[in-house]
């Protein structure tokens, strides 16, 4: 079976290392982007199975990236899990309005649980 392709859009390099390595070990193919524009370019270019998206990002924030993904005919169906440290009700609501598939607060989740959520989302 081919490996599922996951993109991590995150400006914090150490989170790429830990989460990227963890997810690779779980059997995913992991791609990395460090700002919103780079992330969007990769989503456009590669056929991805899922995107993990931070909200506070350089160049384009997560909401903008999400809105552009959902507007585009080719990309609009890719599941997007927001993975951020913002956790106010306003942020969560805004994310779902823009079309987030799931919303996870980083500091509340272990990577194991993030991986679980990814697998659940991919099954749907």
């Amino acid at each position: 079976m081919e490996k599922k392709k996951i993109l991590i859009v995150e400006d914090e390099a150490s989170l790429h290392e830990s989460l990227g390595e963890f997810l690779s070990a779980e059997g995913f193919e992991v791609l990395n982007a460090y700002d919103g524009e780079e992330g969007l370019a990769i989503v456009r270019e590669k056929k991805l199975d899922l995107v993990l998206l931070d909200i506070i990002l350089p160049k384009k924030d997560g909401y903008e990236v999400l809105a552009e993904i959902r507007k585009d005919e080719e990309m609009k169906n890719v599941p997007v899990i927001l993975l951020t440290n913002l956790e106010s009700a306003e942020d969560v609501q805004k994310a779902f309005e823009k079309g987030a598939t799931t919303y996870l607060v980083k500091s509340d989740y272990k990577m194991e649980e993030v991986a679980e959520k990814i697998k659940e989302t991919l099954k749907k």
Partner: protein
Amino acid sequence: MRFINDLNLKKQADELGVSVWQTPGFLFIVLGLVAAAVMAATFYLSQNYGSPEVLILSECAVAILVLTVGNSVIRVFEQMAKVNKMKSEFVSVASHQLRTPLSAIRWETELLLSKFKKGLSEKQVKNIESISLLSARMTRLVNDLLDVTRIDQKRLLMKKEPVNVSALAEESIAEMSDLAKSRNVEIIFIPKKNMPKITGDREKIKMVMENLIGNSVKYTTNRGKIEIKVFKKDNSIVFSIKDNGVGIPEEQQNRIFDKFFRSDNCVKYQTDGTGLGLYIAKSIVEQSGGEMWFKSVENLGSIFNFKLPIK
């Protein structure tokens, strides 16, 4: 006494962080002096000149003066409100900034413990485990601080969903069972069926229960017993937790819901904590339309209760 205190402008200025001539007290004195001077002047003018033009002119002058002083009073209040808002924003931004490196630490340690455990010695695993526990504790502290700022700003948003309190109590107990086992404390709970649901924020009510259970476990020494009951009383569901722990000294009982308050027993029994748990718990219960109360006897134990209305 209060009046004299209000006149201590230097102190007021220091407390508010503004200069003396900007304190509300000073400005009100100016306002009073202006009013008195104006009355005297108007009286003098009407006695000596008596023409309506002079009177109208002097009244206009008064209006302008009052508006100018009044305006600076308002500006000072605005400035104070701004400073207060900035303070809360600072706590909130600082907490968010702390969470990013904290999640990084937690994930790095998780990676080591889950995927690279084979290469580690037993001692190393223990060390990494304690890093993991400590960073989890710090994350909780940061989360508590964020909740407190939200409560203080009246911005803590609560969901409105149907909640089965008895089932939620079972879940909370299950989450706390490891802690209870590690302290050799037994938790007794017999769930009741067919209880009416309440309307509230499930996650937040669960947080309140876990806080109370956590406290009971932490302050109950070896072979302790905790009894939890959930029952219907009048138009409310009551959650009650009784322990045979160390209790709270009587003279400190009226302060336990204060922010950052920690009883002497915390120090004595070396439990970790921030002194924010009960403050947050009580605020959540009250914001859900309920009440929280307790009874405690030192060395015998405590009973904590909260009730939530059935809507």
